[in-house]
């Protein structure tokens, strides 16, 4: 098993606030790594720091053997990292088709194949192909955002809280699709909803107050009532 992404002791500030105070991650290739933690623990900022959107002041981010913490976001994306933000980042003025067009960096056969695959996975998008992003349902936006991140030859997808604001049945669908995508790429998934995420995760990192406070396998977390209670607020 090879490590695709290593985050070592990153510290990130937003304005004068010290949000990340030492976050460590290790993401293994071909697996789904879960980042769990309470609201405000620094999960979203961690993803944004990896993407270079809120660059880390200190620490190291190594993707596929290369340090990327000083790169601009577009260069990080070009290294092969796809990003699905918390608010999905769907462009409301653009149609689904244009959203996809915008995302595609190089239109070759492999990309076309990936696009076909992801549209088969989310047939909704095919139906809404000419519809504006602003007119999509929450679930459709989530699917479009994931499709956009996957359509390029990205070796890593960062997905931020895909369950947020979606109906349980839609969340189930999204989680199923993540299992499907896992066969083809590596995924870092931020989740607040432990129960939803526990079905797809392989490895788990828990953040609290801007620190990595726990790492282990999914099975470890499931059986560790103390950890669940302390960091995830899941009692009994």
């Amino acid at each position, binding site marked *: 098993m090879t490590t695709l992404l290593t985050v070592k002791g990153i510290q990130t500030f937003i304005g004068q606030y010290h949000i990340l105070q030492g976050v460590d991650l290790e993401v293994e290739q071909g697996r789904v790594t879960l980042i769990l933690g309470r609201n405000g623990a620094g999960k979203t900022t961690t993803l944004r720091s990896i993407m270079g*959107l809120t660059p880390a002041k200190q620490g190291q981010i190594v993707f596929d053997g290369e340090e990327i913490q000083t790169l*601009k*976001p577009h260069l990080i*994306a070009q290294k092969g990292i796809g990003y699905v933000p918390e608010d999905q*980042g769907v*462009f409301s003025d653009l149609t689904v088709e244009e959203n996809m*067009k915008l995302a595609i960096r190089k239109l070759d056969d492999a990309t076309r194949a990936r696009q076909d695959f992801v549209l088969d996975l989310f047939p909704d998008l095919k139906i809404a192909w000419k519809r504006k992003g602003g007119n999509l349902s929450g679930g459709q936006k989530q699917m479009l955002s994931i499709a*956009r991140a996957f359509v390029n030859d990205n070796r890593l997808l960062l997905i931020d809280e895909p369950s947020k604001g979606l109906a349980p049945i839609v969340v189930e669908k999204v989680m199923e699709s993540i299992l499907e995508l896992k066969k083809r790429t590596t995924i870092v998934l931020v989740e607040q909803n432990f129960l939803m995420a526990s079905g797809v995760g392989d490895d788990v990192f828990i953040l609290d107050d801007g620190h990595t406070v726990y790492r282990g396998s999914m099975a470890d977390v499931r059986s560790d009532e103390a950890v669940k209670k302390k960091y995830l607020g899941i009692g009994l």
Partner: protein
Amino acid sequence: MSLTVNLLLNGVALGMLIFLIAVGLTLIFGLMGVLNFAHGAIFAWGAYVGWAVYGATGSFILAILAGTATGFVLGFVMERFFIRPFYGNHVAQILLTLGLMIVLTEGIKIFFGPNILGFDKPELLQGVVTILQDPFPVYRIFTIGVGALVLIGVHYLLSRTKYGIIIRAGVQDPEMVQALGIDVRKVFALVFAFGAGLASFGAVIAGPSFGSLHPEIGMQNQLAAFIVIVIGGIGNFVGAAIGAVLVGITQTLMAYYLPEAALAVNVALMALVLILKPEGLFGLRR
């Protein structure tokens, strides 16, 4: 009847000129949140350089090329050295562009003198044609034609090309565009230079239409463009086009019937839009 048609055509011609200024302003603002108060000064520089080149070479085409290039280069330099270091700091950007406006306007006075200069129409475009038994200057038709072509061209660029998609996406969420692997800064610089180039292009076309140039020509037209983009909804291309024609027509009608109040009516129009629909007639609420 024919007078109305004539005035309307004049209004559309003026609207097209204002549109050429407004389109750059509105795109730059929508994309980068930068309201460029030096945009009018770039317009003025385009007009003056066009005038000088036209005077020196006698070629209107060369004048247009030189004027447009002036704006493009000025826009590029401005973005690179004055705007870029201050992205996200709107106050500094506004203050800076106003400073650039002062320097560029004074620069015109130094290079070309503070007095009014005559700008003749090229021979080919002089004269009148008869529309509905009324004489109508050929140059107006030329202006409307050029404006319409630019409108179609920009519309095509925005709606059909990848660049257009990037720009429209960038207007909404530049960060996400970047996260998709696109160098937004590069696009910003291009749009800035392109918008400035369009304004100075419009300036060379406008010069002979106004018949004369003076150093304050930039500020006057910039104000009209501001009013247009407030009415049309800031960052909105279609809104700018409709707003420009609207303002052009009211201005022409007022200039004919009540010249004292021409600008007042447009400012009042803007005030009305602000009260009733602050996001502009065609704007999206953000």
